C-alpha cells in the first residue's frame, strides 16, 4: 500500500538575498551537480545572460513546490517576466522506498535537518536506483512570458541557475521540488519509525532526541580551543569607524546623521568601558567582597 503523503505545507520561498555568483566552484557541490543536470537545456548565450541577470539582482522571486517552480525575472529592459517550470517528481513508490532508506539511519535526517545533504544519501538512494537530480532534459517543462522564439530562454536559465546556487544552503529545495517537503518527509519518517516492528523499538526507548547533539557526545562539555582569542575592550582608534567607512547615507537627506549619532556612540563606549573595567567607588568594595567569597568557596 503506497503511503499517502501528508498535505504540502505550501510553496517554499527562496532567500535570494545571499545570492553571490557563482558561489560554489567545488566539483562535487550540490550546485555544481545541479548545473550539470541542466547543462544541456540552454545555449551558452542564454547561460551568460542568465548569470548577468542574477548578478544584477534581476531575479526577483522564486517559489518551489513539488514538481513546480514559479518565478519572476526582469528582462534587460527591466520588464518583469513570469516563469513556470515543471519538474518531474519521484513517484510515490520511489519516495516510499527512499523513506525506508532514509529511516534506516537517523544520521541522514539529522544531517538534513541541519541543512547538510551528505553524499551518503545519494549513494544510498542510488542503490535503489532513485536519482534525486533530474536525469534528463525531458524532466523539465519550461514556460516564460517573454516572446523568445524558444522556451529555453535566459529567464528560465536564470531561475534554474539561481536555484542551483541556493541548494548548498538548503537541501530541502531539491527534496521539495522532487516531491516531498520538509514537513512531509519528517512526518513520513516518524510514521515509519513508529510503525516499525516491535523488536526494532528497544525496550525503554528514549524520547526522540536532538540528533545533532548526540553525534557530539564526546565533546558535549568541551569548548573548542580559544587560547588564541584575544579580547581588547577599548574605544576605537577612529570614532564611529564602522559608520564612517560607509560614508554619509544619501537617503538620510541631510548630512547630520553622523553628528546626531556621535553622542550615542560616545555614550555606548563609555558604558561598555565602565562595565568592563568598573569605575565607580562601589566596585572597590564589590571587588574585595568577591575575593573573599570566591576564595571562601574554594
Amino acid at each position: 500500500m503506497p503511503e499517502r503523503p501528508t498535505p504540502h505545507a505550501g510553496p517554499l520561498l527562496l532567500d535570494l538575498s545571499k545570492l553571490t555568483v557563482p558561489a560554489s566552484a567545488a566539483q562535487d557541490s550540490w550546485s555544481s551537480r545541479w548545473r550539470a543536470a541542466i547543462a544541456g537545456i540552454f545555449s551558452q548565450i542564454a547561460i551568460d545572460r542568465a548569470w548577468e541577470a542574477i548578478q544584477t539582482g534581476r531575479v526577483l522571486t522564486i517559489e518551489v513546490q513539488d514538481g513546480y517552480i514559479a518565478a519572476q525575472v526582469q528582462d534587460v529592459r527591466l520588464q518583469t517576466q513570469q516563469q513556470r517550470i515543471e519538474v518531474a517528481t519521484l513517484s510515490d513508490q520511489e519516495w516510499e522506498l527512499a523513506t525506508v532508506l532514509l529511516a534506516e539511519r537517523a544520521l541522514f535526517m539529522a544531517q538534513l535537518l541541519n541543512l547538510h545533504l551528505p553524499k551518503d544519501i545519494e549513494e544510498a538512494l542510488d542503490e535503489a536506483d532513485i536519482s534525486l537530480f533530474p536525469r534528463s532534459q525531458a524532466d523539465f517543462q519550461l514556460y516564460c512570458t517573454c516572446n523568445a522564439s524558444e522556451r529555453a530562454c535566459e529567464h528560465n536559465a536564470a531561475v534554474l541557475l539561481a536555484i542551483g546556487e541556493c541548494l548548498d544552503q538548503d537541501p530541502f529545495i531539491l527534496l521539495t521540488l522532487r516531491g516531498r517537503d520538509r514537513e512531509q518527509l519528517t512526518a513520513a519518517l516518524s510514521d515509519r519509525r513508529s510503525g516499525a516492528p516491535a523488536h526494532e523499538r528497544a525496550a525503554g526507548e528514549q524520547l526522540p532526541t536532538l540528533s545533532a547533539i548526540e553525534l557530539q557526545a564526546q565533546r558535549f562539555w568541551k569548548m573548542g580551543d580559544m587560547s588564541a582569542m584575544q579580547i581588547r575592550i577599548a574605544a576605537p582608534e577612529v570614532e564611529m569607524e564602522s559608520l564612517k567607512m560607509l560614508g554619509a547615507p544619501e537617503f538620510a537627506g541631510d548630512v547630520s546623521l553622523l553628528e546626531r549619532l556621535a553622542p550615542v556612540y560616545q555614550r555606548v563606549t563609555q558604558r561598555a568601558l565602565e562595565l568592563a573595567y568598573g569605575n565607580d567607588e562601589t566596585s572597590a568594595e564589590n571587588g574585595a567582597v568577591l575575593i573573599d567569597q570566591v576564595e571562601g568557596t574554594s
Partner: protein
Amino acid sequence: MEAILHGTWIVDDYRQLDGMFFVWAERKAALTQSRYQVRVRRHPYAATTIEIAQLLSLYVPGIAWSSTERMTRAALLPSQANSPQVPPWLRMPDDEADDAAPHFAYWRLEGIGVPILQMLEVLTALPAIAKEQQDHHIGVDLQYWSLVAKFGLEQLAGQRYVPGLVSQDKALEAVWLPSLGSDADRERLAQLAEGMPPACSAVVRESGEMEAAAPEPKLLLQNFINTLINQAVREWGGGEALLTGVRRPANLTESWWQALWHPDRRLNVPSSEQRQLSNYYQSWQRWSLSNSDIAASNFGVCLRLEQPDYTAAKNGELPPWVLRYFIQSREDPSLLVPASDVWMERGQVLSYLNYNFEHPQERLLESLGKAARISPAIQRSLLTSNPDHAVLSAEEAYTFLRETAHLLEGLGISVLVPPWWSQPDARLHVRISLHAPTDIHDAGMLGMNSLVQYDWQLALGDELITHEEFERLAALKAPLVQMRGRWVLLQPDQVEAAIAFWERQQKQGALPLNDALALALGADEEIDGLEIGDVELDPLLTDLFERITGSVPIEPLETPPDFVGELRPYQERGLAWLAFMGKWGLGACLADDMGLGKTIQAIALLLHVRAQLPELPSTLLICPTSLVGNWKREVERFAPHLNVVVHHGAKRAGAEELASLASKADLVISTYGLARRDLESLRPISWGHIILDEAQNIKNPITKQARAIRRLQGQRRVVLTGTPIENRLSELWSILSFLNPGYLGSLEAFRRAFAVPIERFQDEETSERLRKLVRPFILRRVKTDPTVIQDLPAKFEHKVYCNLTREQVTLYEAVVQDAMRELKEGEQRDPVLKRRGQVLAMLTRLKQICDHPALYLGDGSVLGARSGKLNRLLEMLDEVLATGERSLVFTQYAQMGQLLQRHLVEYFRREVLFLHGGTSQPAREKMIMRFQEADDAPGIFVLSLKAGGTGLNLMRANHVFHFDRWWNPAVENQATDRAFRIGQSRDVQVHKLIAVGTLEDRIDMLIESKRALAESVVGSGEDWLADLSTDALLDLVTLRADALELASDEDREEHDA
C-alpha cells in the same frame, strides 16, 4: 553550597531579538529522584532557583536576583540509567558505572531567565579561562558565553556596529547591527561558532521543540550577538529619551531614527515608500562590501601622502600637502604605478616591468569612488578628467593622518604616510631623568624607601622644548607644526594637558626608589595625560637597573665556608641574587621549582649575611606548621652553627621572653598562624630578615593572616614559593606588597589597572606590562632550564620531614606503651615466633598512625587536618598541580590509598586515579592508558605498592611521593622502579615523607648510617626489625623530643582563615 553554574542563550525564533539567558546550576549532591512516571524527569542534581540566585549574586551583587523570572526547560544530556552522567570534575571514586557509553535523555531544569543586558554584567565579571586553571564552579557552557559576551562588549566599546534596517513580516524594522567589518572579527566569530560546546544548544522547551533539530551553533551565536548589540545601543545610547515625540515623522530618515529608539522597532512609513527606503539602505551598505574581484586581483590602489617641503615656502606660506594616487602590485608592494600612467593606457591591460594589470582604470576609479565618500579632498580631485593627486590643506592633512587613512585601509585601499607619523616621539611627551642622591653613591646602598631625585621636561620630536617655545607653537593652533625643521604633531588635547602639566608639576623633586624603579620599568604610560618618553638613569641607577632586569649578570658568590655541603652552581647564583637584592633593600621572591633547594639557598643567605653584616639583627622565618620540623632539620644539617629558636607550640615564649631569645638567636622559626595570633610579640622586634616560606599562605591579601604578616618589621624581606605566582594576581599583589610595600599600588588600584584586564579579558599588553614590573623581584628557575638541568642529577630523592599532630602523638605513645609492656611481660615465656608477630603488629600500627589516625582506627572518620604527612602532601601536590606536572603517590596500605584518593578528589576537585592489588585487569589497563595518553589525564595517580608489577608504564609522572616507607631501601627502589619506568629525557623527583621523631625517622637514620650494612644484612622485608632486642626496639620506637615539641593541632585551619 558547592555547585556549578550553567547557562545558555535560548530563543524561539532566530529572526527575533527577544531571547533570554537561561541560568541553571548543578549541585554536588542529588536533590530529588522523581518517583512519578513523567515525560521529562527532573534533573536530580539541579539546584533550586533560590540557590541559583545566590550564586549569581556572588558575581554581580547589585541585582535583586531572587526576584528575577523563573523558567523551566528541558536539557538533553548524556545520561546513565537513572541520572545525567556525572561530569568529569564531579566524578567520585565510586562512580564506576561510567564504563557504559552514555545515551542521551531529557531532564527537566528549573532556572532563572535573565535579560541579556543583566546577563552581560555577570558574563563580563567571570574570569577568563586559562587552560591550567579551569574553574569548576562555572560550567563550560557559561565560560563559553562569557567569552562571547566579552567579544560583544568589545564590539560595543569599539563602536563596531551600525544602525540597520531589516524587513520582518512585511514591515521594516530598525535595529542596531554588528558591522563585523574586519576579517579579524569575522574570523573570531567563526572560531566562536566552531568552538561552541554542544551543551550550549541542548536546552529547549519541554514540548514541541524536543523533536526538532538542535539549534545551529552559528545561528544561536549570531542571535545572541545581534540581540546584545541592539539592546545595549538602545539602552545605553540614550534610549527613548531620543524620541522626538512626533507621531508621524516628516521624512523617511526621521521615521528610521524614531524606530531606532522606540521599543516597537517597526518603521512608521507607508508601505509604498518602504521599498524605496530599503533600496536606499542597501545601496548605502554596499559601499562597505569589499569587492571580491579586487581582493583577488594582482594589484590594488595605493594613496601616498606627501608633506610640503618647508624650504619651498613663499611669503611665509607653505605649499599644500599632496595625496598621490597609484596602483600597487600585491606581489611587490614597492612597485607603484602613478595614476597618470594608468590614465595613459589605452588597452585593457597595463604592462609594467614584468607585471600585467588588467582593467587598471576601472579598478582605480572604483577605489577612488569609495575613497571620495570619506575624503572631500579626493572628491574634489575627481572633478577633473584624469586625476592623479588631491591637494590637502594642513587641517585636512591632519584629519587624513588621524582618521581617513585608517578608514581607507578598512576599505582595502593601502595608504602611505610620512614615516615620522608612526613614531611616538613625533608627539608631545615627557622626558624624565632620575639620579640617585649623591650621599648614597659612596655607600653603594639604597633602601626601597630612599629618595631618588627626578627631573622632568617636555619634549617634542627628539628635542626638549622650553616653555616659551611651547607657547609659541601652541599659539599657532595647528595640529601639525614644524619645529626646528621637522614636522611634529600638536594635538589640541595634548596642548591642554601640557599647559596643565606646567602649572601643576614641579620640575624637580624626589621619589622613593620604589616609584623610580616602577617608572623606569614602564609602569605608567602617561602622566597628566601626556605620554612618558625616555626615562634617563644616572650611572648608579643604571647599574642597579641593568642587574635587576638581568641584562647584566650579578657577580656570583661562592658557598659560604661554614655551610656544610656544597651548593650547586645555580644555587650559588640564587644566593648571589638574594644577597644583591638585600643589599639594595629590595624584597626578593625566590620561586624555584619544587626540589631545586630553596631552603638551602635561604640557609646559605643567612650564613653569608651573618659573615658580612654581623650587626644585622636576627632573622624571622615564617612557614606553615607542617614545615617547622623540616626547617629545623635542614638548618641543623647545613648550618649547625646557627642558633635556632622554634617559636611554636603550646609552651612557646611570651612577648618579653621572645624578645630576649630573639636577640641571642640567629634564626627564629614560627608559623603563619602564630604571626597572626602572636603579632603583638613579633611586631615590636626589629628583624634583620623576614623570610616567608610557602608564601601562598598569604595568597588572599585581605585575610587577617596576610595583613598581620605585612605589619612585621624587617630590614630585608625574602619570600620562598614553589608556585608560579605571576599568574595568580591577588597572590602576586599580596607577596609583592609584603616584599616592597607600595610598589604595585593599593589593592584596588592594582585590581583596576592589572587584575581586571588580565583576569577578565586575558589582556596580553597588560600582562606584559605587569610581567615587566614584577619580574625583577622574582627569580624562578624550573628544572628543565638548561642552566639548571646540567647541575641536576637525573633522578633525585629528598626526604620530607613532617610533624605529627597532637592526636597522632597520643595514639602513637599509647600503642608504644601497650606493646612494650606486652613484650616485656612475655619476654621469657613467649616463643620467638609469637614475639615476632607482636613486634610486626606494633610496627604496622605505628606506621599506620604516622600515615593517618583514621587508617589506624579504621573508623571511617573524616581525614581533615589530623595527619602531618597528609597536610604536607596536600601542600606539595598543590605546587605540582600548579606547574601542570603529574605525580604518583605510593603507599603500602591499600586502605590508605583509598582514603587518599577520596580526600584528594574532594580537596582538589580533580579526578584522581587509584590502583591497588584488587583492581581488575581491564580497569587497570584503562587507568594506565588514561594516565599515559589522555589529553586531560588526571594529575595524581595513587598506587598501593603491592599493585606494582610488570608492564606498568607511567612515564608521564615526574614526581613520586612515598607516603610511607618500606623499610628496606632495595625493596623500596625495586618496587617503585618496577612500577614505573623513568623516562630517559625527563627528570623525576622522589619525595619520601618521614614523620619527625618517630620510628620512621629512626629507621631512616639507621639505614643512612649503615647503608652498606643495611643492604646486605637487612635482607628482604621488615623481618630484621623483629629480631632486635627489646631495648633496641624500645629505643627505635620511642617518640623523640622534637616530635613532641613540634606536634600541634593548629595545622591546616589557620591557612584557610
